[in-house]
């Protein structure tokens, strides 16, 4: 019975999702990105680090699809490798954000009372500090590296997840299955993890998908400013720094890596919105 109903629930989801062309397009973009990131060494026509001083700032052509940069490196190959950075940062940063958000949101929603008050005031506080300022300040005191970037984006981006999880917990904890678990003597921690959390995951899934897009935007902005992923490691953001430096004579350095960021973020946004609509029983 339970199996049957959950299967049909999944079928409804898949049905609704596959009818939403934009959502499917978003899913395709994300899958293609994964393939690109995983198989970058096989797909890249050139070594992304190979310097060729005889062919610097070459316009896009058949041999260099997106041109070359100021050191004669192939922009297209570097973009393929850049996909790895974006994916890694996106997933790890949002993973951290969700972990913190779930812990804080679940505690606030489940325990209520002063725990809720204190934690939610903390959320308000974090939302008051301009996030980008906070991220930059933290990085100023640490070393700019891909690991620090992921952690910083994570610890400054959990607040909306916490609010969502709290709201879910507030409504779910009044349900009978929670009272039943309590009557059976199940500990609070187990009720939170095994009984309520799995039921509150769908809004978190949506917010995570949208959040990955946001994290990629933040990482690329930081790398663009020179305080994110450090050259020579190619990231779409630090490739755009070269675009700015050569803005008057090499438009391709500004256009293509930015387009990659734009399409990627768009893919996650479309996918996230699609999942939201497909999970929403009010929308048919």
């Amino acid at each position, binding site marked *: 019975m339970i199996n049957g109903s959950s299967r049909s629930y999944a079928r409804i989801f898949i049905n609704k999702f596959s009818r939403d062309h934009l959502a499917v397009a978003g899913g395709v973009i994300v899958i293609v990105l994964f393939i690109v990131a995983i198989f970058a060494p096989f797909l890249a026509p050139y070594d992304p680090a190979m310097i060729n001083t005889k062919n610097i700032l070459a316009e896009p052509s058949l041999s260099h699809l997106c041109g070359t940069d100021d050191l004669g490196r192939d922009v297209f190959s570097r973009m393929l490798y850049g996909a790895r950075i974006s994916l890694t940062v996106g997933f790890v940063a949002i993973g951290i954000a969700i972990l913190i958000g779930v812990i804080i949101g679940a505690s606030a929603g489940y325990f209520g009372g002063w725990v809720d008050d204190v934690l939610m005031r903390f959320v*308000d506080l974090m939302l*008051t*500090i301009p996030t980008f300022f906070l991220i930059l300040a933290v990085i100023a*005191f640490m070393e700019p590296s891909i690991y620090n970037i992921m952690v910083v984006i994570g610890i400054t981006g959990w607040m909306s997840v916490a609010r969502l999880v709290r709201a879910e917990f507030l409504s779910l904890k009044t349900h009978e299955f929670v009272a039943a678990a309590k009557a059976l003597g199940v500990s609070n921690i187990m009720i939170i993890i095994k009984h309520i959390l799995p039921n509150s995951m769908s809004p978190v899934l949506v917010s995570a998908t949208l959040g990955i897009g946001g994290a990629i935007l933040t990482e690329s902005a930081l790398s663009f*400013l020179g305080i994110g992923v450090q050259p020579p490691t190619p990231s779409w953001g630090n490739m755009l720094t070269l675009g700015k430096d050569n803005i008057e004579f090499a438009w391709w350095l500004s256009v293509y890596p930015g387009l990659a960021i734009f399409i990627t973020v768009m893919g996650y946004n*479309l996918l996230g919105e699609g999942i939201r609509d497909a999970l929403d029983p009010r929308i048919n």
Partner: protein
Amino acid sequence: MSVYVIKRTLMMVPMMIGITMISFLIIHLAPGDPTEMLTDLNPHSSAESLKKLRELYNLDKPLAFQYFLWVKDIAILDFGTSFSQDARPVIDKISERIPITLLINALSLIIIIVIAIPIGVVSATKQYSLFDKASSIFVFFGFSMPTFWLALLLMILFGVILGWFPISGITSFNHDQLTPFYKLVDYVKHLFMPVLVSALTGLAGLSRFTRQNMLEVILQDYIVTARAKGLSERRVIYKHAMKNALLPVITIMALSLPGLIGGSVIFESIYSIPGMGQLFFQSVMSRDYPVIMGVLVIGSFLTLVANLLADITYAFVDPRITYD
């Protein structure tokens, strides 16, 4: 009402204490003594600047005492002096940078409101129309567009290809020789792109928010009543529905401020605008800690004030809500 205003204003005190605590903890984020890391990372930092840092943040004293001493100073706006060559008081450096940042943010906020609200209202009243679909696509573009990429593209278009607008700074070289009118023109030309970029990034969020609110309000009973009374559709939408749909916009504007202020780092460094964002970025690059802490605290304080104003405005314009 006045009781509410006083209470709400007093609530800023614990918030401010919280903000200073978080900011203060950042100084201690670095593993070990922050001054050690300073020497590792920044070979230029002299023994003298190390000593200054220790003195400024009293790093040899107990943690709670350090915090107390720091807060005591910033309560009278003493953020210490900059580590850079000029060694000027941090508060002077910041306050001369605030007006231009506020000006750009205020201009872009006005543009956002003037454009986003009509888009949201019209797409809600004509749901699923061509306009609604077009604006949804626009919203998706806006959400996915990296600010700095947009800035670069506009620089290429308006600066390099068309040559209409200068691509950096806020004044031309010959600014001082210009007549007052052309001085103004000069400012407008320089600010055009930064304001446009700043506004475009905020447009998507607000127009979508307005649309959703409008859609919800249209379903309310009082709208049905207004229609049943035989009011014209124009009157129903623009008088009865819009008033209520726009109330939460006040709050959302205030909530979007941290994003706008934070975003100023990006466009101010791209367009070389001497505002708070650029100062902050330069300080991060040169590890000018007193300035970093100062901008962080003052930037957060500005958002707190904006939130306060939004809440008070809300209380004044929405008679349904009573506060005690």
